[in-house]
């Protein structure tokens, strides 16, 4: 029995367990056919890789530190605008309260004869740009996304994506995600969050459950759910039951 192509390649690339590799090497050493195949495969690969090297361009210089700086989260324009407004209000307040400031007189002199206004509540601070609430995982053969409870409002927007990862993200309210081997459970009792769910196209079997009821099932390339996808291919799953 001679080495098959899988064994030849694995021997060549050190992709066999020692227990499997040793007897195959011993066989190849004593068998002219298999020894020849192994030598020919090694020569062919060396020649191939040398030719592929002709395509190369210099690798751009980049360090991990430079890349990390580039990857650091940046404030969005909306955040910057909100921060600017808050700063402007704060600066006006300081100017108004500053001893000798002409601003109070200007305001009073403007004919505004209202009684002193009750202290206004401070404008709500812009939300802290914290880490996104969610999980990402490469699903195995069978995977479940379990919303532990129905919600009074909110929905899950489900999209099929090309990457290898399944992701569930929550927006609008904090919820807890418990990640198991074959499932992620969203502890959403009493929450009113919306969710984004990304299902990898290659995932074999994924189901989404809400309060124990299956509301979507992906089996290979097929998706079974009561709702139809919108123009962008997104399934909107209501979480009320």
């Amino acid at each position, binding site marked *: 029995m001679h080495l*098959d*192509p*899988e*064994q*030849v*390649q*694995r021997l060549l*690339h050190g*992709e066999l367990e020692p227990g499997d590799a040793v007897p195959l090497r011993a066989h190849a050493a004593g068998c002219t056919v298999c020894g020849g195949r192994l030598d020919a*495969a090694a020569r*062919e*690969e060396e020649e*191939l*890789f040398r*030719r*592929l090297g*002709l*395509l*190369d*361009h*210099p*690798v*751009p210089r*980049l360090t*991990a*530190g430079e*890349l*990390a700086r*580039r*990857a650091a*989260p940046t404030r969005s324009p909306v955040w910057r605008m909100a921060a600017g407004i808050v700063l402007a209000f704060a600066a006006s307040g300081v100017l108004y309260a500053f001893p000798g400031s002409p601003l109070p007189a200007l305001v009073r002199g403007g004919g505004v004869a209202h009684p002193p206004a009750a202290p206004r509540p401070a404008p709500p601070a812009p939300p802290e740009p914290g*880490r996104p609430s969610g999980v*990402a*995982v*490469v699903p195995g053969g069978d995977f479940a996304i379990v919303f532990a409870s129905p919600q009074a409002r909110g929905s899950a927007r489900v999209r099929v994506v*090309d*990457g*290898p*990862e399944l992701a569930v993200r929550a927006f609008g309210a904090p919820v807890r995600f418990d990640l198991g081997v074959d499932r992620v459970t969203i502890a959403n009792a009493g929450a009113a969050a919306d969710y984004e769910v990304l299902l990898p196209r*290659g995932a074999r079997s994924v189901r989404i459950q809400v309060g124990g009821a299956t509301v979507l099932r992906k089996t290979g390339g097929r998706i079974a759910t009561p709702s139809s996808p919108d123009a962008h291919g997104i399934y909107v799953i209501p979480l009320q039951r």
Partner: protein
Amino acid sequence: MDTSFHQRFVEIFNADYARVFRYLDRLSGDPELAADVAQEAFVRLYRRGSLPDAPTAWLISVAMNLFRNERARHARRRRLLTVERGERAMAEPAPSPYDAVAGGESRDRVRAALDRLAERERQLLLLRAEGYAYSDIARALELNEASVGTLLARAKRAFREAWEEPVHAS
């Protein structure tokens, strides 16, 4: 950012950045596109804030998806340019000095042979040429790991046949 994650990220970057770039460069023949996509893949890994189960396979998958999207975007843009400006826009840029030094005809012949392979065969050969393990190749290309060697042998044979096939100038 978690210190241990940062350290691990640096290790992965140092081990993988050059080979992700080279893989994409060989796949596309476009070093600028390859550099952009490789950097973006690592940026996404860093922003993720934690490592996936198989970081190497994850990086390859993300890089390939980004590459596909970018290539489609470039193709759309090129079609638009062609409509606006006529066939002139389709002309390839002049070869760079680096191209000239690196061997013109041989490089063209390698590119032509690679282009004649099926997409999967091309990816297999280029990933293995960068020394990726069978497990990472299988995961990234969604193959059965037990058959990676057989598929590699077929891809090599296909390359050899494409290499030996005479090229007819049109």
